[in-house]
């Protein structure tokens, strides 16, 4: 029997009440079960297990239909597994095929997790992937932040070639999350977390053209002294201001910068002093930049939805109260998300794929789910960090892809979602998917 879903309409008031209710709420359950893991409108197309539990991290899908490739970061968060990247063909989404495995050399001797986040980009007619790496002290390559592979020749695995490694000797520990943005000036930039009080920015075109020395463009700072820096971010064009905007979650909350000049980032809006938020995580805006979905990384934390309008209109500079929230199972934690307004696709850790609708931003509505992880919380690692880790959506056909820390790669379709173009919904066609071939919106000097 289908039990009442807890999260479909989780306004702020309801959520606050939820935290105040003790045992009666604790007895409620979610509709997904091991025998019936998905909603009727979600179709599982394919599933490719990738190895030991807790060995899969984030993922990325190319957007062009003639380049049907998914990139999956491989880490050792448990006790076994590889450290690198898997390249998977989704030419037939019902039969994902592992094409190529890039591994750090001597991976058995490298400390800590290894691969974490992975993104792709196109530059000068060639396609590349960037794999962020984290290696700990006590082993080699503690200064190695990322590796760049030329993947233009896929699906022929013999053509994959390593073209560069980004190192930061003064910031040991590597890069955690990364984001690649096709800037309005036509350049392609890598934004990355590091053990630094801000997000480091690199010109990827320069790197693959062999000019590593000049590729570091600067740092998007994070306000506050003694900051641990950012955890995750998104960068997108903001039509109402004609600015390239950076949305970062990290120490103290969330921050929005104008990065039209990446070397001179200017703070626009802060979201600090938010109840229950001391360290922001993933942070993604709606296509028009008015609403933002903000994650925090602890058990019981919902995704908070904020309306930035008072700040965008200049009435305030800081927003601290969400207008609503979403969670899958209040006992757990939801993780990364991809916004294809009005839908938000979530990799919900222990609760698998979750999809909610934000057409009414004050009333998030669950519209689909499929639990990719049928297992218990961790006992040897942080309890919540298992299950669906990464999510991506191919705009052209609406293919949904999940990377699960323990069960591998999954491909899905949702009934009625056959692709996404923001303009069809009355919004700018802006998402994490980049239009690599779009011309520059504004000119750029020769030296940048």
């Amino acid at each position, binding site marked *: 029997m289908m039990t009442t879903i807890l999260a479909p309409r989780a306004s702020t008031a309801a959520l606050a009440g939820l935290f105040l209710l003790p045992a009666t709420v604790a007895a409620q359950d979610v509709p997904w079960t091991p025998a019936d893991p998905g909603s009727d409108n979600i179709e599982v197309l394919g599933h490719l297990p990738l190895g030991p539990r807790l060995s899969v991290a984030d993922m990325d899908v190319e957007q062009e239909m003639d380049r049907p490739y998914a990139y999956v970061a491989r880490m050792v968060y448990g006790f076994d597994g590889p450290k690198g990247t898997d390249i998977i063909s989704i030419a037939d989404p019902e039969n994902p095929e592992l094409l190529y495995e890039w591994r750090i050399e001597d991976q058995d001797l490298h400390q800590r997790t290894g691969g974490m986040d992975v993104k792709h980009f196109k530059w000068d007619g060639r396609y590349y992937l960037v794999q962020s790496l984290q290696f700990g002290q006590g082993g080699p390559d503690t200064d190695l932040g990322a590796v760049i592979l030329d993947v233009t020749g896929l699906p022929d695995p013999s053509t994959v070639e390593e073209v560069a490694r980004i190192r930061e000797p003064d910031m040991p520990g590597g890069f955690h*999350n990364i984001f690649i943005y096709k800037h309005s000036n036509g350049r392609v930039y890598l934004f990355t*977390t590091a053990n630094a009080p801000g997000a480091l920015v690199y010109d990827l075109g320069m790197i693959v053209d062999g000019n590593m020395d000049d590729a570091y463009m600067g740092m998007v700072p994070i306000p506050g002294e003694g900051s641990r*820096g950012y955890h995750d971010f998104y960068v997108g064009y903001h039509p109402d201001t004609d600015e390239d905007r950076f949305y970062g979650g990290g120490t103290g909350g969330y921050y929005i910068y104008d990065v039209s000049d990446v070397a001179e980032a200017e703070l626009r809006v802060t979201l600090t002093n938010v109840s229950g938020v001391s360290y922001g995580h993933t942070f993604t805006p709606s296509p028009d930049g008015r609403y933002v979905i903000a994650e925090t990384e602890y058990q019981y934390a919902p995704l908070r939805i904020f309306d930035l309008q008072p700040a965008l209109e200049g009435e305030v500079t800081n927003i601290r109260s969400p207008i609503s929230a979403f969670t899958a199972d209040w006992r757990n934690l939801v993780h990364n998300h991809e916004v294809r307004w009005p839908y938000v696709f979530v990799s919900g850790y222990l609760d698998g794929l979750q999809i909610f609708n934000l057409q009414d931003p004050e009333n998030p509505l669950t519209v689909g789910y499929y639990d990719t992880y049928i297992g218990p919380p961790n006992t040897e690692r942080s309890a919540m960090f298992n299950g669906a880790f990464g999510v991506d959506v191919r705009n052209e056909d609406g293919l949904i892809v999940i990377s699960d820390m323990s069960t591998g790669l999954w491909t899905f379709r949702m009934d009625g979602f056959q692709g996404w173009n923001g303009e069809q919904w009355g919004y700018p066609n802006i998402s994490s998917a980049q239009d690599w071939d779009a011309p520059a919106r504004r000119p750029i000097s020769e030296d940048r």
Partner: protein
Amino acid sequence: MTFAAALLPVVVLTLTATPAPTAFPTCAPPEYYAIELVTTRNIPGTGYSRGTADVTFRPAPFGISIAPDGSYSYNVRIRFDNLRTPRTGQYVAWLTTTELDEVVPVGPLDDEGAASGPVEWNKFIVVVSLEDSWSPDATRWSGPIAFRGMSRSGNMHTMIGHGPLQDEQCAAYGYDD
């Protein structure tokens, strides 16, 4: 400083520059000087093998041996329990720096699964690989790594390297069961 005191390091360096003795103390060192050797599960049959690399100071007439660069000079004694003889090839032990930029061959494990050698690094990694054959001229392993172990001093590092998803002990990732 007296002349004798000033001369003492020279004497020590001279004495410790001699080749490593072939016989090492047999008593087990304190736990801090015992490096757990963890299987990589790359080699079938190693799943239940347990190994230890015991670290002891090399004998010296003045109690402590140091290398010409001032580093402590140790003996490393590698031993295994439950180590099956590989179907082909032989296990060879190596010592390497944490950056893997220097490698010292210890040599093949004997029939008892043991090998010994000197080391003059503070932080180092013990590697046991499966090689087709052993040559004293080998400078680095070429076969798959079967076991690994990190010197206890490798656990010590600055907090600069701590970031997201690092609430657990760093060394827990893939080294310690």
